[in-house]
């Protein structure tokens, strides 16, 4: 278990100082695949590098199994990193790279050789053992970097945007591979990414970060279905925001005048203007506008292969996107300029204050 306790990181001095992490606290469980997700500059990499020991926070504590590791240099922390650009040693072979950590720990040669072999088998790189990093493809280098970081059997493995340099197909492969390695080794993975899709597919839990703070922590499903604030809803997946009015009786008045009873969170029931979050794939288009709670004028149709995106303009002028899976058996044609109804279940609606 790793506890990050009110970590504070500031770059620079005085009024021009940049606060990279503002008293961030998070507890990551044993054998968990935990993802730090956020846009660039949100502090996710700073948090990762603080855990690795490359950044010295000005306040707080990082406890690994109860012991504060903040005063330890990187080479004394039982934590290993897979770097964004892999950082493989170019003058060493694949096997030497993988064995480097164990060699530095002073393990006997026979043990190093055995572990290197085991790790190379784990990442399916055994035939490449005597190659140099420069002779490997990006995906292969990625696997070697993984094997190198896993070889010393760290308590925690840190992955810094480790898949972002790979092309889409390889990235999908490596996502599954990473998940497999994590469950096989039982090591805690802390994964940093700006790619929300990657975070959703791989993580046990996600921490969404912005401007040096954690905005929400939860399972991928919780984060996607129940975003607690606009930033999280906007950053994760495609979202429609609808301005509405919450009445004291718990009903919501939509633009256009319809009233619905939305799935309210207990603490969010304050009467007044609210923002509704409605995911595009949880809505359907209706030919008869009066049958649906919302309606809008179809402005644009974007074909995306698996599905089609319908861009509508609501009564209050806001944009709304409906996503519809393409099915040749049920061809539907909506005309541009046509007024259409937007249907959805009450559970599909999240109510945010303001």
């Amino acid at each position: 278990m790793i506890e990050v306790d009110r970590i504070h990181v500031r770059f620079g001095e005085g009024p021009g100082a940049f606060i990279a992490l503002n008293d961030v606290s998070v507890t990551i469980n044993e054998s968990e695949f935990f993802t730090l997700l956020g846009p660039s500059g949100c502090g996710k990499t700073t948090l990762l590098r603080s855990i690795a020991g490359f950044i010295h926070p000005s306040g707080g504590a990082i406890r690994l199994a109860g012991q504060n590791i903040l005063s330890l240099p990187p080479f004394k922390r039982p934590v290993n990193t897979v770097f964004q650009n892999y950082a493989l040693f170019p003058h060493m072979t694949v096997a030497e790279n993988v064995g480097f950590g164990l060699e530095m720990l002073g393990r006997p040669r026979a043990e190093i050789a055995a572990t290197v072999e085991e790790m190379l088998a784990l990442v399916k790189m055994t035939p490449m053992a005597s190659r140099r990093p420069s002779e490997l493809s990006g995906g292969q280098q990625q696997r070697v970097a993984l094997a190198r970081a896993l070889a010393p059997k760290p308590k925690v493995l840190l992955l810094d945007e480790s898949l972002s340099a790979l092309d889409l197909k390889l990235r999908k492969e490596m996502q599954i591979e990473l998940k497999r390695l994590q469950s096989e080794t039982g090591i805690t993975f802390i994964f940093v990414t700006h790619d929300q899709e990657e975070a959703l597919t791989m993580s046990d839990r996600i921490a969404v970060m912005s401007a040096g703070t954690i905005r929400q922590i939860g399972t991928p499903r919780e984060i996607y279905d129940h975003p607690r604030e606009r930033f999280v809803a906007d950053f994760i997946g495609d979202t429609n925001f609808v301005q509405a009015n919450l009445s004291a009786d718990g009903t919501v008045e939509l633009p256009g005048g319809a009233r619905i009873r939305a799935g309210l969170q207990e603490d969010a029931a304050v009467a007044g203007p609210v923002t509704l979050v409605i995911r595009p794939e949880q809505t359907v288009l209706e030919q008869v506008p009066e049958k649906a709670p919302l309606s809008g004028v179809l402005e644009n149709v974007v074909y995306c292969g698996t599905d089609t995106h319908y861009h509508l303009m609501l009564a209050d002028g806001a944009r709304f996107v409906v996503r519809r899976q393409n099915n040749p058996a049920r061809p539907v044609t909506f005309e541009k300029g046509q007024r259409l109804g937007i249907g959805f279940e009450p559970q599909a609606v999240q109510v945010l204050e303001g």
Partner: protein
Amino acid sequence: MAVTQPNTDLVIANRRETRNRWLLLLPSIVILLAAAVGPLIVVVIYSFLTAGDYGGVVWHFSWDGWLGVFTTSDPFDGTLSLANAHISILWRSVKLSFLTTLFCLILGFPTAYFIATRPVTQRDGWMLLITIPFWTNLLIRTFAIMGLIRNEGLANGLLEWLGIIDQPIQMMFTDFAILLGMVYVYLPLMVLPLYASMERLNFSLIDAAYDLYATPFRVLRRVIVPAVKPGVVAGSILVFVPSLGAYVIPRILGGGTQLMLGNLIELQFGQARNWPLGAALSLTLLVMVTVALIVYVRASANEGD
């Protein structure tokens, strides 16, 4: 015929292209012959001639020049014996050049590392500080060192004022003085290539090594040094080669007593009026440098595997 016609054209075109290529190369070949190969041939020829009484050479074949490199003949009975003076000068040249290279490396490595780890905007300023002495005349720099270390100089004055010594330490006209001067003068030649290779160093490799339990010393030995080895090799060559042939620095700081090869060669063409011996000594220096380079480059290449 119709088939072979284009082929003939092609042959002619090829021939023309080859001729043009040689024409384009001609200026460089001429310069190379006139400035490097030609003079070298002259030196080789002179080393096998007889010394003239007032300098110059007499066109008469003789081994005397080459014999004189390592032996000395008795002026009365003509018996040959080992030239101890030459051998000690040779030894001093090799020893001082080696030490100069070593100290330049020890001082230059952290210097280059320091500059390479500064923010990009500051690096040029630091490099300027390294190169400014290089724009100053060698004689002036050498005399400046003399001002520092002579008996009435700054170093002795300071030590006396502090009460550490009561007699000035004799530093001028010693091997130490020559070494100090050569390290000072040749240090930029070490720092520049070291810096060039360190600037290209991928610093995330250092992070990775730290992360994999390497102590700072092991990071240096296992990651930084192998990565900047081309710079170390280039810098060492750039310092060692001119050190071996140094002339001005030992002449001024070593006085007339602590000679190096460069001074010995100059002596033959000047006061001693023994041009064949001077030519032979020059070629000896050339062979030594070449052998040293081959050995060094081979050794450092093998070590990498």
